[in-house]
Structure formats: structure tokens, C-alpha cells
């Protein structure tokens, strides 16, 4: 499902020709119902032959000279209401077989991140410990990244915002991707800072925001999505290296915890990378997508379990 939404918002770039009838527009979809020249990108008014005046929103050109006809909101010009289709589900998201799986996966991860953030609140308020602050912020931003990844795209598509707001779909795609990359980079930076907080300047948090903004901006303007993945990989590997070397600096009785944490960060690193590839490079890992979802969920649940075990459910 992520690919369908991703493709819908990103595939049509400004200036590119619109897909022709019969050509796939979104993954698994054909625009069979759309007559030629009738679908125009938002923001580019359709010119009516002979009249040379832009058509008004919600009006449809009638080739036989009839008056403009009002079109229901959420429907593409020329698109007939299919039996069983819903105006709030214009691209058939709910019918996608992976929709349910991705919805559950996203909800579980967001809930885990929220609980981690919420349950460490009192601890941070009591101690003001910077390591705890960075750790909980990392999960706050992981939660935001997953929220943006799924729900913002879902709202944009399900509420048909490009048509409602008369904005080209790719604008929402770019904005969504920007927010996702920003939030996920912030999460990784905070995770890194939680391991090196003693060496990180107390008033240096704004640097993290600047770095994340630059990474998100690079991703927005750089065609090759692998650049973003490479940057996030470097940050994650740094986290791994720091937690690996911490194993040797830890007292004997605490070594077990340090090793466990290293393994968790290692899994987080592997599955976050796979997730990024899944999102940024459509169809890269379609076959093992469910496996990635399952193991990623497990990683977040293990972290949540470790937090609750120590903090309690309060």
C-alpha cells in the first residue's frame, strides 16, 4: 500500500506528461475509465476547445456542447462513480491487500514509541538526565516518522487534498517525504546523542535540527534517494560503534545489558535501513515486506518491554 500512495504522490512530476489511458498511473491501477485529454494536473486549468477559457473547479467539459456539469468532490474529471467505490477512497486504498497489515504495523510501532516516550516522562522530570531526554526524544521522532509515513499520506489521498486544495499531487508527495526524512533523521540523531550525551554540548540541540533539516532538504532536491539512506546509515553506524565500544568500558556486572543494547541497536539499524529502502526505493523489497514489518515491530516491542520492565506501567 505504501508503494501505491508513494507512487501516486511522487510519480507525476510537474512538467511531466500525464499518464495516458491504459497506462499504469499507480501501482496496480489502470486509468481505464479516463478518456484522453480529460485528466489534467491540479493547478493547470483545462482549456475548453473553441472557448479557450479555463474550466471552473468541479466542472466537466461536455464535448457535445452541453453546459458544464457539476462533478462530485473527490472524483477525477471523466471518472464515473464505480459501483462499490467510495468518494473518500478514490484510489481504492481500503481494497489493497497490504493495507490492513501496514495499518496494524504502523499503529503498533506508533503506540510503542508513544508508550516509551510517555512512560519515561516522570523519570526525566525527576532527574533532568540528558541521556533520558535524548532517548525519549528519539522515540518521539520515530513515532512522528511512522505517523507521517502512513497517516499523512493516507489523509492526503483519502481526503483527496490535491483536488480539494487545487495543488499538484507531487507537492504533497515532496512535503510528506520531507517531513518523514526530517523526523527519522532527528530520531537517529537523538539516539546517537543518547549514547554520547556526556560529550555532547548541553545547548547544542539546535545543531540536530539543522542537520536533520539539511538532510531532508537534500532528499527533497536530490533525485537519488540513496543519498538520504547513506546519510542515515552513517548516523546509525556511529550509534552502533559507540554502543559497541561502550561494552568494553562497562563494569563486568553491567556488561550483559550493554551487549543486549548493542544487539537491539544492531537490529534497529538493519530494519530501519530496510524500511527506508522500502519507502524510498519502491518495489525494492516488496517480496519480504511483511517480514520487515514483522521484525521491525518486534524490535520496537522489545525496546518497549525493556523500558516498561524498568520504569513500570506508570
Amino acid at each position, binding site marked *: 500500500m505504501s508503494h501505491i500512495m508513494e507512487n501516486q504522490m511522487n510519480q507525476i512530476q510537474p512538467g511531466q506528461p500525464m499518464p495516458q489511458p491504459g497506462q499504469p498511473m499507480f501501482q496496480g491501477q489502470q486509468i481505464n475509465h479516463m478518456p484522453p485529454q480529460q485528466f489534467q494536473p491540479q493547478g493547470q486549468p483545462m482549456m475548453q476547445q473553441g472557448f479557450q477559457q479555463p474550466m471552473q473547479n468541479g466542472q466537466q467539459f461536455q464535448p457535445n456542447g452541453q453546459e458544464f456539469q457539476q462533478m462530485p468532490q473527490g472524483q477525477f474529471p471523466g471518472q464515473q462513480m464505480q459501483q462499490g467505490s467510495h468518494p473518500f477512497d478514490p484510489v481504492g486504498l481500503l481494497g489493497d491487500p497490504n493495507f490492513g497489515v501496514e495499518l496494524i504495523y504502523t499503529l503498533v510501532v506508533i503506540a510503542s514509541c508513544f508508550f516509551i516516550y510517555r512512560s519515561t516522562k516522570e523519570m526525566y522530570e*525527576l532527574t533532568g538526565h540528558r541521556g533520558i531526554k535524548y532517548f525519549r526524544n528519539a522515540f518521539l521522532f520515530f513515532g512522528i516518522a511512522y505517523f507521517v509515513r502512513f497517516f499523512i499520506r493516507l489523509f492526503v489521498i483519502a481526503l483527496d487534498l490535491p483536488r480539494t486544495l487545487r495543488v499538484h499531487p507531487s507537492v504533497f508527495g515532496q512535503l510528506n517525504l520531507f517531513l518523514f526524512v526530517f523526523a527519522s533523521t532527528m530520531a537517529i540523531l537523538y539516539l546517537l546523542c543518547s549514547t554520547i550525551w556526556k560529550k555532547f554540548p548541553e545547548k547544542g540541540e539546535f545543531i540536530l535540527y539543522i542537520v536533520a533539516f539539511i538532510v531532508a532538504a537534500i532528499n527533497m532536491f536530490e533525485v537519488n534517494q540513496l543519498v538520504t539512506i547513506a546519510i542515515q546509515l552513517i548516523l546509525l553506524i556511529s550509534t552502533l560503534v559507540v554502543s559497541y565500544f561502550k561494552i568494553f568500558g562497562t563494569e563486568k556486572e553491567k556488561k550483559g545489558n550493554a551487549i543486549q543494547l548493542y544487539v537491539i541497536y544492531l537490529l534497529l539499524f538493519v530494519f530501519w535501513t530496510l524500511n527506508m529502502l522500502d519507502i524510498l526505493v519502491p518495489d525494492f523489497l516488496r517480496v519480504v515486506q511483511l517480514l520487515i514489518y514483522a521484525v521491525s515491530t518486534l524490535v520496537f516491542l522489545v525496546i518497549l518491554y525493556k523500558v516498561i520492565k524498568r520504569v513500570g506501567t506508570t
Partner: protein
Amino acid sequence: MKRGRLELIYDLLRIIQKHNNSIKPTPLLRFSNLSSQRFELYFGELVEKGFIHEKEEKGRKVISLTDKGFRYLERYKNIIGFIDEFDL
């Protein structure tokens, strides 16, 4: 071994609790095993963060724990466990 910030706060709060939640500043300094300079620093932090408050008792200034101070004592082991668990 030098005590960490969280441990020092715990020790100070624990001393106050052990003295029926009412102790004068001088004995607190003595029991804390801190230099007066470091004591001032941590004492200020405890007041600022609302872990302790000073009150008058029989014309003398005494220090007591607030609810937040008691909560810190309750949660201390969990906090340390959490910090160790995630190597923070």
C-alpha cells in the same frame, strides 16, 4: 569512587528522610560528606527542583522533603536500572 549527580541527590534526600523528614542544614552538610561548596551547589538544585523545602520550626530553619522528593526516593532504583539498561 566519586558519586554521580543522581546518587548524591538520592543520598541527601535519604538523610532528610531518615531524620524524620526534618533536619537542620548543618547536620545535613555533615552527614552528606560533601565539601561546603559542593553541598551549596546540590542544596540549591534540590530547592530549585522542588525536592525539598525549608520551613521554620520552633524558631529554627529546618529542611523537609516535598512530595516530589519522596517520589524521587521511591523511583530512584528504577531510574538507575533504566539508565544502566540503556547505557545512558
